[in-house]
């Protein structure tokens, strides 16, 4: 947004401006962009454990700091894989234990919606129709 008037004759043109964070778009490393491009949740989970993605977390740091961070990231890589696996297990455990409970708990709410707002209920069901349980 520029409020200044057009440059008058005989004066230097205004120097071009840069781009804001919103105008530049998402700022991620190549490895992370590749991981985010995966459509399947399972492949995304596998990409999260890739050493290239962990290594790329040092991207964008100044020289020397970056190399030191890469060294530290190599050191913690086994712990990272362990953490991702444990996180995955927790997620799995959540779906197996908590989801059925929630399903049961919200049974009356769903029954009420099905009876009183049938169109909305059908639309909501259609939204999740072709999805696996781990994609919901």
């Amino acid at each position, binding site marked *: *947004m*520029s*409020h*200044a*008037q*057009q*440059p*008058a004759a*005989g*004066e*230097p043109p*205004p*120097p*071009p*401006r*840069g*781009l*804001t*964070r919103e*105008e*530049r778009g*998402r*700022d*991620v*490393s190549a490895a*992370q962009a590749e991981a985010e491009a995966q459509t399947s949740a399972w492949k995304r989970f596998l990409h*999260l454990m890739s050493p290239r*993605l962990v290594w*790329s*977390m040092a*991207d*964008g*740091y*100044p020289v020397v*700091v970056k190399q030191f961070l890469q060294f530290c990231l190599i050191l913690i890589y086994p712990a990272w894989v362990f953490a991702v696996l444990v996180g995955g297990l927790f997620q799995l455990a959540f779906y197996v234990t908590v989801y059925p409970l929630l399903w049961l708990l919200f049974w009356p709410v769903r029954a009420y919606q099905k009876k009183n707002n049938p169109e909305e209920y059908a639309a909501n069901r259609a939204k999740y129709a072709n999805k696996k349980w781990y994609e919901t």
Partner: protein
Amino acid sequence: MGLLQRASVVVTPGVVTPRQTVQATVVVDEPVRRVRSARLDWGYVNFYQYHWAGRVDSVAAEGNDTMWTAGQVGTNYGGDRDTDDWVSVVVEDLPIAASVFDGAASSFRIPSWAPASSQAIARWECRLAVDREGRDVAARGEFVVQIGTGDVESYVEPLEHVSGAAETVVDVSLTKPVWRAGETVTGHVTLVPSTDLPDGDLAVSWQRERESHPLTRTPGPGGQLDGRIVQLDKRIQLRAGTPVTLAFELELPDDAPPTAAAVHSSINWFVQARLMYRGFNGHSLERVRRPIIVVNAP
């Protein structure tokens, strides 16, 4: 010849508006010898914020918001820093006779697009750089650029819808689009409910937005500052098809940095209105804002 060559740049007048001309006088304690070249650089120091390290949207950045690293200094990923860069507008080579430099004078016409001087955006300077065999000589003189009402284009900019489901059409109209720092902004907020709605709670305030858009570095997030919130009415009856109009007055700060667009950062001003509905219900908060232009000279 002394070891320390001293030069000073004096710019007059110290405070100017666009399209005016400033004079710079370079004074040296004693003639500077063995000079290869000398030049005067007119421009401004541009202040902005940049992301100094790490990728902004990296997976590691998500760790910044976790509870177990809250308050732990040095555990954050990346970060933003304030910095500045020199933006050169006009460079002028000064004549050197027989490798001796003994002062100069020059003038500069402030461009019409010049961003105003303020701590958030720019500091205008005239810089002297003398390149010589031996220690170079550098000096700078500062001057202040103020923006007057006549230096900006006066037009009403479209209303921006920030949030809400537009169940009530909120419109902010101002008596004029250009305001001076310290002035009291006056205008009206018009509410047009599309259906019968719960009672409304309306408030207005000014908003200052600073954006960083560096040419090469990764930009910082930018920031917004809201002025004092002026409550207009807490229980506005909102009935379908019955428009409600309320007048408001907002005081702009005396030291408000003017609306400016520089190379690496810019400042935009808005008058924003927010409407909340009474009670717990599904009606979401409506927020709109109208851009205004703030100047600091008559």
